Each structure stands twice: as C-alpha cells, then as structure tokens.
C-alpha cells in the first residue's frame, strides 16, 4: 500500500498517476479517432508510455529486490515488444488493403510501391 504522508511514497504515487493519465488518454484516443492507423498511433504510444511509468513507479517503490528485478524485466519486455507488435499490425493492415481515412493527406508506404494502392485500396468513413 502507499502512504501519501511519506514523501517517497508520494513520488511513487505521482509517477503511477501520470502513467494512469497516459493510459486513459490513449484509450480515449483509441475510441475517438477515425482510422485504424490513427487508433494504432494513439493507443500504442500513449499506453506504452503509461505502462512504462507505472512499472517505473514499482521499481522506485521496491528497489532492486525480488519485486523490482521482475519489474525491470517486465519494463524491458514492454518497451521492446509493444512497438514491434504495433509495427507488425500496421504493416499487415496496409498490405491487406484496409483503407485510410478520407481526410488523410498522404500515404508514403503506397507511394514507395509497397502495400496495396490504386483502386484496390478504399477509403473509410469516420
């Protein structure tokens, strides 16, 4: 438990609260944005940083003991695997022909000759 009268625990609580704010903002972006790629952008970046801050709070709370080392391992895994998974999903979605939002200004991946382009790709309404 966290005792907010203790300044060390107060710092931990501030870190974890900042992480919660990033998480919830990322989830709201996942619901509100118009497109697969926009949703992936908002969700992945905000939620990864939020979980990173929460795990940093756990490390600060317990030091490098039995819990802290596991938190370091978990932080490394989250920081490496979450952007990789997001990149794989975005690449697969573009190559499978999921369309961009009609308000998108450019599509560099299709201009480079990758993915699906031309009449095959279709636009989606928000």
């Amino acid at each position: 438990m966290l005792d907010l009268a203790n300044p060390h625990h107060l710092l931990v609580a501030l870190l974890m609260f900042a992480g919660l704010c990033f998480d919830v903002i990322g989830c709201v972006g996942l619901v509100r944005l118009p497109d697969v790629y926009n949703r992936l952008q908002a969700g992945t970046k905000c939620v990864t940083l939020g979980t990173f801050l929460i795990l940093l709070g756990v490390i600060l709370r317990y030091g490098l003991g039995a819990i802290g080392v596991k938190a370091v391992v978990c932080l490394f895994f989250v920081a490496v695997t979450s952007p990789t998974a997001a990149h794989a999903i975005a690449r697969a979605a573009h190559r499978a022909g999921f369309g961009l939002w009609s308000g998108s200004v450019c599509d560099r991946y299709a201009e480079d000759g990758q993915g699906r382009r031309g009449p095959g790709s279709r636009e989606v309404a928000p």
Partner: protein
Amino acid sequence: MTVFLLLGLVAGGFLVLWRALRGPTPADRTVSVDILGVLMVGFCAVLTVHTGRDLYMIVGVAWSLLAFIGSLALAKYLEGMHYDA
C-alpha cells in the same frame, strides 16, 4: 490511492473493449486486443503495489510476452485477409 488507480485502469480497459466490440474492421479489433494486453500489464503492476506480493509481477511478465506473440499471430492472419476483395 491504489484502488483509484485500479479503477481508472479498469475504466480504460472497458473503453478498449468497447472498440473491440464496435470496431468496423478486423484491424480495429486486432489493435484493441494488442493494447488491452499492455494495459493489463500495468494493471498487474498496480496490483503488485496494492498487495505487496511479487506473484502479480510474475503474471505481468508472462502476460507481456504472451500478448506480443498473440499480436504477431493476429497480424499474420490479418495480412492474408484481402479485405477489399
């Protein structure tokens, strides 16, 4: 304090689940499943501070790896879909 953090993470999880239910394309559902995995790792971390036991941190480590493998499998399935056809 930690109860408030847990409730906030549960609220964010329900937003992600709403997108997984509502999502117009299969890619939206894949994105929601991926993000729900990372969110649950944070939930396990807050649960570790709430209870003071290291059991939940082990669950978080395993969950992060399994969510990564699941996201890669779903991405490979998505790539062969040819959604526009």
